[in-house]
């Protein structure tokens, strides 16, 4: 149990370091494209993904670094993908927004919001048909909840009683617009009743509470239960993308509390300065090694794209 608190802290610290570092590297133009980070949302990634079993499946978002890292992806493989290198998780072909690691049962981000939720229901159906007790966790942002695909997926999961935990990462923004411009309801969790399952809303900064709820809900599913929806509330720290001027942002809406600090405050005895410094040092070391790895790698030989196409059945 005590080890667990330290683990939670360690995983959040890894994500924090990773996000801080990619922001720095992005500003230094080490890689191109967009960059969405989940800095400040580490308790969601770790609380949710840290509660899963190896055989469970995860669908992540366009803001997925935390989800992937918390699910056990090593920093260097993720960073190499962001750099577009052959040594990356998808050989640099998918890139930051779509990065996946199916060896760890992570379907990954999706460039088209809402499209991962139907896929999650299919995974869950497959697990049930195979009589496996694994579950599927499908994360999406608050703004994404208004895509038609999400609605269809939730109803499908409900009527087929599929083991999907829908996790809404509510960070109060949909790209450059506030939650209140997208919803009339107080909580996205209110959507669950529209399909006939349960919805929960929780602070997304308390990693322990998040983990406990996810544990409780997924263990019901492992015993044959149907879907559930959890809204996890934070307030986005940075812009939608790094570099976002955020002139739309209401100054009154303060970034949510630091989940690392909250955990430290609840467990001062376990997370003393020495422990935290050692964790930080390790995270920095993993990060430094990841940067060396990503920089050093080369791009996929472009000709290999054709082999990939043939291999994946893309007709000529």
């Amino acid at each position: 149990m005590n080890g667990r608190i330290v683990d939670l802290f360690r995983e959040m610290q890894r994500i924090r370091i990773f996000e801080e570092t990619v922001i720095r590297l992005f500003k230094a133009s080490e890689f191109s494209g967009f960059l969405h980070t989940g800095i400040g949302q580490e308790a969601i990634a770790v609380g949710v993904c840290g509660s899963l079993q190896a055989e469970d499946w995860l669908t992540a978002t366009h803001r997925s670094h935390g989800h992937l890292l918390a699910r056990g992806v090593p920093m260097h493989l993720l960073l190499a993908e962001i750099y577009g290198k052959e040594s990356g998780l998808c050989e640099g072909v998918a890139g930051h927004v779509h990065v996946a690691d199916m060896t760890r049962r992570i379907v990954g981000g999706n460039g088209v919001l809402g499209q991962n939720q139907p896929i999650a229901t299919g995974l869950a159906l497959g697990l049930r048909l195979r009589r496996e007790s694994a579950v599927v966790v499908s994360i999406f942002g608050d703004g994404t909840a208004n895509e038609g695909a999400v609605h269809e997926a939730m109803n499908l999961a409900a009527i087929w009683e599929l083991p999907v935990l829908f996790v809404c990462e509510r960070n109060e923004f949909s790209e450059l617009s506030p939650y209140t411009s997208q919803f009339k309801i107080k909580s996205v969790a209110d959507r669950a009743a529209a399909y006939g399952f349960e919805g929960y809303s929780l602070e997304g900064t308390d990693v322990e509470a998040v983990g406990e709820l996810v544990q409780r809900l997924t263990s019901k599913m492992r015993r044959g239960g149907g879907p559930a929806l959890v809204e996890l509330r934070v307030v986005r720290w940075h812009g939608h993308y790094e570099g976002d001027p955020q002139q739309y942002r209401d100054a009154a809406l303060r970034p949510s509390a630091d989940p690392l600090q909250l955990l430290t405050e609840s467990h001062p005895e376990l997370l003393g300065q020495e422990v935290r410094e050692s964790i930080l040092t390790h995270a920095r070391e993993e990060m430094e090694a990841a940067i060396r790895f990503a920089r050093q790698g080369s791009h996929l030989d472009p000709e290999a794209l054709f082999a990939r196409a043939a291999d994946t059945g893309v007709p000529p």
Partner: protein
Amino acid sequence: MSTSSSLVPGTVLKKYRVAIRDALAEEMTRDANVLLMGQDIGISNGLFRLTEGLYERFGPERVRDTPISETATVGAAIGLAMLGFRPVVEIAFSDLMLTCFDTIVNQLAKLRWMFGSQCPPLPVVIRALTGAGLGVGSHHSQSLEALFAHMPGLNVLTPATSADAAGLLKGAIRSSTPTIFLEHKMLLRDSSPVTPGEVRQPGEAFLTRTGTDLTLVGYAYTAKLALQSAVELAAKGIAAEVIDLRSISPLDTDTVTTSVLKTGRLLVIQEAYKPFGVGAEVIARLAAKNLGHLKAPMDRLAVPFMPIPASKALEQFYLPSVSKVTQRAVQMMAA
């Protein structure tokens, strides 16, 4: 498409509709990972009875009714495929595939390519009824093959005979490439010979009649029209060669090239909208080759560039027909 009773030994005469149903049953028997999903395909046998008897035979887990949620259905098929299943989705009208177009062309078609070999093949087959002729208007009659064939990552098949309906469907279910399988409404009751168990591969056009004067290219219902027109043309002393493309992606233009090198004239017949359609692609591929002097410019016969009218009389005016093909062929001969 022949209804001749002199069957080649080892073949059986089957309705197109039944050939599809039987192919599904055979693949489900052969491979426990094959399962069907779609609206009312279970106890109700599907709107066009294309899954008749399969629910009783394979049960609700493998013949699964879905709600009116095409996006969720196709998305779920992708998830199932990631776990090793081979889902076959039925969408009763291909027009309705446009409600889940992103799921098909941005997700199903691309994800494995994007993720690489860590992702298993996604052998989802989407079967949908295509084509006009029932007088059911602009939202239930379109021929949309070109939309899917423009996008990488999908095979697009358009069988015109029972043998192709069965053989290509079996091939599609076993293939590692996702497939759009378009079944023409006006062919469902046509009977033609099928070799039981035969599996056919995409990407091979079929020479259905030889001739020396001009090449008629069709697929799905227009393959039938072309063949019927060739009979009319023969009576006028014109020997038309007829090719059934069968597969729109991959597209076999070698067979067409060989034929046009012989005949010097090409007419592609499509029920789909003309611009950016199958005829355009066939002709552009041939134009890029050094075919030498042709006896007439290569051309297309298609529907007027407008939606499909519901009224039966207007629909008949709108659609290609045997006489329209014949007339155009005669014009090409005269040119």
